[in-house]
C-alpha cells in the first residue's frame, strides 16, 4: 500500500508536480491516466523512490525515504517507460529481478529459481529464455522486462505504460496476469493511454492534469463526470450497451 500526502517534486526548471493526497491499495489495480507531459512518469518515479521529494510517501506505513534501497525494492517494483536494449539473455534479465532478495551475497536459491520460472511462464517467455534482448521484437522485449518485475515479487508494482509494443493478445494476457497478481494481494499502479482498457481493468483511476493529481475514483465515477475525461482526452466514456463489446466501458464522441 502506498499512501501519498502533500507530495511535491520538481525538475531543475519548470513547474512543480504535486499530489495532495492519494492511496494506492494492495489487491487493486490503480490506473494513472493523463495527457502527455501531465506528470505520470514523474509521479511513478517519485513513488518508486527514484526522485527527491517533499511531503510524505508511506509505503506500507513507512516513509519511502527511510527504507534502505534494497528494502524498498522488496516492497515496490518499478518498470520505467522505456527500457534498454541489452546484450543479455532473457533468463539472466529475469533473474536480476531477484536482486533485492539475494543481493550480492546469496546465490540464486530454489525459491528464486521458482519465482523466475513462474514469471517466465506467466508471460509465456519461457521459450525465449536463452534469446538475447537484442534479438527480440519490441513486444517480446517488453514482456521480458515484465517477467523481471514479476520475479521481483514485491507487494506493490509500479509500471509506466507496460503494454507498449504489445499486441492485443499479449495485452489481454497482461491484464490477466495482473489479475492473478492482484489476487495474491499485490497492489498494481500502472500508467496507461488506452482509456477503454484502463476503465475495463482498473479498480481505481487516478487522473493527472497539469502536473497535479487531483481526481481519483472508480471507472463509474469518471464515467459520470464526463467533462473531466473529455477535457483531457477529447472523448467521453459510457457504459457499453452492446453485449458483444470487448470492454465494459467504451468511448463516445
Amino acid at each position, binding site marked *: 500500500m502506498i499512501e501519498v500526502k502533500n507530495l511535491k517534486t520538481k525538475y531543475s526548471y519548470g513547474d512543480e508536480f504535486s499530489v495532495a493526497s492519494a492511496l494506492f491499495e494492495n489487491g487493486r489495480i490503480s490506473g494513472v491516466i493523463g495527457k502527455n507531459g501531465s506528470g505520470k512518469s514523474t509521479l511513478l518515479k517519485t513513488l518508486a523512490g527514484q526522485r527527491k521529494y517533499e511531503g510524505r510517501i508511506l509505503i506500507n506505513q513507512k516513509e519511502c525515504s527511510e527504507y534502505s534501497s534494497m528494502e524498498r*525494492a522488496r516492497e515496490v*517494483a518499478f518498470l520505467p517507460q522505456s*527500457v*534498454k536494449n*541489452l*546484450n543479455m539473455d532473457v533468463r539472466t534479465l529475469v533473474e536480476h529481478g531477484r536482486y*533485492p532478495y539475494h*543481493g550480492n551475497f546469496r546465490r540464486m536459491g530454489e525459491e528464486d529459481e521458482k519465482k523466475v520460472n513462474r514469471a517466465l511462464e506467466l508471460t509465456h517467455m519461457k521459450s525465449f529464455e536463452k534469446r538475447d534482448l*537484442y534479438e527480440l521484437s519490441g513486444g517480446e522485449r517488453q514482456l521480458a522486462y515484465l517477467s523481471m518485475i514479476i520475479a521481483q515479487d514485491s507487494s506493490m508494482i509500479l509500471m509506466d505504460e507496460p503494454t507498449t509494443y504489445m499486441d492485443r493478445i499479449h495485452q489481454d494476457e497482461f491484464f490477466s496476469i495482473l489479475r492473478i497478481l492482484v489476487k495474491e494481494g499485490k497492489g498494481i499502479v500502472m500508467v496507461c493511454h488506452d482509456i477503454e482498457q484502463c476503465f475495463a481493468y482498473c479498480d481505481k483511476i487516478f487522473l493527472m492534469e497539469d502536473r497535479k493529481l487531483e481526481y481519483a475514483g472508480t471507472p463509474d465515477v469518471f464515467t459520470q463526470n464526463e467533462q473531466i475525461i473529455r477535457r483531457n482526452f477529447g472523448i467521453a466514456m459510457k457504459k457499453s450497451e452492446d453485449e458483444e463489446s470487448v470492454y465494459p466501458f467504451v468511448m463516445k464522441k
Partner: protein
Amino acid sequence: MKKIIKWYILPLGILILSLVAALFAGSKSISVKDIIKVLSGGGSAFQKVIIFQVRIPRIIATASTGAALSVSGYLIQNNLNNTLASPGILGINNGAGLFVLLFACLFPYHYAGKCFAAFIGALLVTTAICILASVTGMSKTSIVLSGVAFSALCLSVIDIIISLKPETVADRVAFQIGGFNALNINSVKFAVPFIIIILIASLIMAPSLDILMLGDDVAGGLGLNIKFYRAAHILFAALLSGAAVSMCGIIGFMGLIVPNVVRLFYRGNSRGGIFLCMVIGASFLTLCDLLGRSLVYPYELPCGLFLSLIGAPFLVWMLIKKRKRLGMA
C-alpha cells in the same frame, strides 16, 4: 556440466599449467631435477635462493598482477558501459606514476618504498575522481570526465617534476614500461595479499555490476544504490591496479585487451566474467613473462611486448569470429 568444464575447469587447468611451466622454465643453470630437489627441501643454497627468492615470488607477482589488471579493467568497463575505459584512462596509472616520481625525489634509492607510493597515488587520485564525480552526479559521463581531468592534472605535475629534476626522467620511463625483472620481494609481500582480498571482494560484489548495466532507472527500481556501487567498483578497480602497478609499473593493454576478449566469448553474468578475467589474466601474464625471461636468457624482454604481440592478434581473431554479435551492439 559442459558449462562448468568450459568456464571453470578448463581455465583453471590452463592457469595451473602456466604456473607450473613458469616454475620449471628459466635459467639453464638449474635443471628440472634440481627444482624438484629444492621443492622437497634439498638443493644447494644458491638453488634455494633462485627458486624461493627469485622465481616463486616472480610467478606469484605475475599471476596476481595479471589477475588484478584484467579484473580492474573489467570492473571499470562494465561499470561505465564503455569498452575503452581502463585504469589508465581514468588517471589511476598517472596518479601512481606521480607519486612514484615524488617519492623518487624525496627518498631516492628506497626501492621498497616506491611500491607504497604508487599504491597511495592510485588511491588518492581515485578518491579525488570519486569526490568530483559525486559532486557532478555520479553519472557515467561525470566519472569518465573527472577521470580524464585528474589524469591530465597528474600528468602535468609529472611534467613539472621532470622539468625541475631532469634526472627523474629515467624513473618515469622505467615506471611506464613496467616489468618484473627488478621485482622487489617486499612489494610482493605487500601487494599480493591485498590483491587477493580485493579480488574476492569483487567476486562477491559482482551481481551489482550486472544490475548497473540495466541502466539507472531499472537498477534503481531493483534497489541498487547506484552511486554507492558505481563508486565502489571504481575504487576496487583502483585498488587492484594500484597494487599491481606498485609491484611492476605500468603494463599497458592488459586491462584493455583481456576484459574485451572475455566479453567477446563469454556471455554470462559478471561473477563468471570476473572469474574468467582473473584466471585468464593470470595465466596470460605468467606465460608472457615466462617468454620474456627465457627467450633471450640471461637477458629479458618486457612481458608487455608478448602481451600485445599475442593479445592483439587474438583480439582481431575474436572480432572476426564474433562479428555477427558485434553488428548488433
